[in-house]
């Protein structure tokens, strides 16, 4: 798939942050968003949307972000997600 444009990436990251897939940015920490983290976030979003979990911000994934939906985030608090992951690992 063609590389997504910078604008798509920016819109995509904004959307993923809004709906809980990425932690909200913090001006003081400016934590870096590793490409792997971004890819994971895209995969989880694709699962909620019923799309193939490629981890790539392709055209279909970008178009899905425009579909009518509920305003609430899909992932309830990244901390909650971490807790669940820890629980699963245990």
């Amino acid at each position: 798939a063609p590389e997504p444009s910078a604008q798509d990436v920016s819109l995509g990251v904004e959307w993923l942050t809004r709906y809980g897939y990425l932690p909200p940015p913090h001006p003081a920490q400016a934590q870096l968003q590793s490409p792997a983290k971004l890819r994971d976030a895209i995969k989880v979003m694709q699962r909620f949307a019923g799309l193939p979990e490629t981890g790539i911000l392709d055209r279909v994934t970008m178009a899905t972000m425009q579909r009518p939906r509920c305003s609430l985030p899909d992932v309830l608090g990244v901390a909650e997600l971490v807790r669940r992951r820890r629980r699963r690992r245990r």
Partner: protein
Amino acid sequence: YALSSSKWEKRTLTWRVRSFPQSSALTAETVRTLMHHALSTWGIESGLRFQELDSQDPTEPDILIDFARAYHQDSYPFDGQGGTLAHAFFPGEHPISGDTHFDDEETWTYGSKDGEGTDLFAVAVHEFGHALGLGHSSAPNSIMRPFYQGPVGEPHKYRLSQDDREGLQQLYGKVPETPYDKPTRKPLAPAPPPPALPPDSPSLPVPDRCDGNFDAIANIRGEIFFFKGPWFWRLQPSGQLVSPRPARLHRFWEGLPAEVKVIQAAYARHPDGRILLFSGPQFWVFQDRQLEGAPRPLTELGLPAGEEVDAVFSWPLNGKTYLIRGGRYWRYDEAAARPDPGYPRDLSLWEGAPHAPDDVSVSNAGDTYFFKGAHYWRFPKGSVKADPDSPQPMGPKWLDCPAPSARPHSPRPPRATLEPGTCDCSCEINE
């Protein structure tokens, strides 16, 4: 499924629609009915009960429903047509907990083909899932998926997916067995919401259920129906009213002729579950909500030609059906499908029963209740002698009404029929 970190501790939640859609063809009555169905979808699987508050009721409901646009004083501004459609707040002690907001700039529809507008019922079921504590789910057929999946069919036929039921039962446990005898059939499905009326059609004045004086009262598959003129109320086995507002008689009982203005008596026939509605010297037989065949004469049940009934009930103890007119009653043997000989008899054999009752019904616990005016007389299961403390006001026990105050005009209980045997009572002319 995913759970938020909160749930309601109480099991009866109140709700009210505070504002209605301005840019959709749905009437307020349709919106309220759709909200009732959407809440009932979760209630049926959890034992949660939902009680609609009247618009005049000053109580703050647990679930306050609004149609709003753009920024509406919470942290989720809407974005015009498309995009975000609605949101709801998880359970909690905050005033906004449980509240549910729909974007008023969407074209909300009911029963439209897919692609036309946004199906209000489907989105409402989703949002009430949040209001009860569920997060979004990625399960393929869950109603809690974040993206709108189109209409989900007829509201009164819709059932939650397994994923949604499991998430709900994580929060609220499985449906508790009701303490009543399990009705042998499912309660009647609520009528579909009314079709969109022309925007300025006047809504008919509805009677006040707390006045009593019902035309007919019947236990139909575990629910008590209270009929009055062209309206009726439904009381669920849990003791909750389906809605404080009455439903339309002719919209629900499909095929009931329009010229039938009043239902004088009603009962559910045990052997086959048919429901019989009586008016004048005739009765109509329904299979579920659909009329079955032509009206039948009351003479078939043993009454003289031209006679009418005040009350009819089926007594589970002997499988007989009792038809009451004034101070007399006839008895019909459902199993033999013929009237019992030796009738009519004097109603005073039901010790303490009121003359010409509005109707009689047997509760899910098996007690027999005579209703008249705003009062009821209770006959314990298997007994033909009224409780000594009868009559009692029916409003607080049956219809979620305040106890009648000692106001001079509050309806006094009508005099019961005489006890059998001689009596030396001196009846004043106006007693």
